[in-house]
């Protein structure tokens, strides 16, 4: 890892041991679920914070770990998040992926956002997404952050919050 100061890397971040605890907890959960798989700790990606806990699941039961439309994977990520942040400490994000499923999904979402960005410009119309999770909304915002001719913003509250792509006048 670079020693240079990057905007996303507060120099003050020191691993507090929760990454290893999260990986061990996830291994125990998967073991009691009867899943044949391993858990690896990964470095946070370029769009993640340096303090994010990134866990990758691999193995023959990865498909079952992901579940229908990723719902089992989402439930795993949620319980690991709750486990990691149960004390009064600083909250840390948790990303649980299996065989790159989430990474591929987010790549597809970012590519779709760019296509819709072009369409918003071509039609000069606001495009509104279906309600999405905070992380998915962030994927869209980031994908279009440097995209000339549109801005993005979120509208609505809670589970109804949606991203809008808004063409800007040049």
């Amino acid at each position: 890892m670079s020693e240079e100061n990057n905007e996303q890397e507060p120099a003050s971040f020191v691993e507090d041991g929760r990454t290893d605890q999260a990986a061990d907890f996830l291994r125990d959960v998967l073991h009691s679920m009867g899943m044949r798989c391993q858990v690896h700790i990964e470095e946070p990606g370029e769009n993640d914070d340096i303090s994010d806990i990134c866990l990758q699941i691999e193995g023959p039961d990865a498909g079952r770990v992901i579940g229908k439309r990723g719902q089992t994977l989402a439930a795993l990520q949620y319980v690991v998040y709750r486990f990691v942040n149960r004390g009064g400490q600083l909250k840390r994000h948790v990303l649980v992926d299996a065989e790159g499923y989430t990474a591929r999904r987010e790549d597809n979402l970012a590519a779709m956002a760019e296509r819709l960005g072009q369409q918003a410009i071509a039609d000069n119309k606001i495009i509104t997404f279906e309600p999405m999770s905070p992380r998915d909304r962030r994927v869209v915002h980031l994908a279009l952050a440097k995209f000339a001719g549109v801005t993005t913003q979120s509208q609505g509250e809670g589970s109804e919050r949606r991203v809008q792509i808004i063409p800007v006048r040049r």
Partner: protein
Amino acid sequence: MREADPRELVLLLARALVDQVDQVRIDEVPTPRGTVLQLSVAPEDIGKIIGKDGRTAQALRTLLSAATSRSGRRVQLDIVD
């Protein structure tokens, strides 16, 4: 093949979510339609198990059903207070 342990799974998850870990109790009740796991926790921890809009309870049931999907043995989770 690795066997799922539904009781162990629920115990592990419940202990990770509550403050009063020693108050987590699971009773296994066999019924004609499968096993029912009755989970009880300290009264002040009930909200932590159920979660906002039942989200935590939903996650527990999702994981329980993924764990038991291969064996075909139905295991139901009841949160008792």
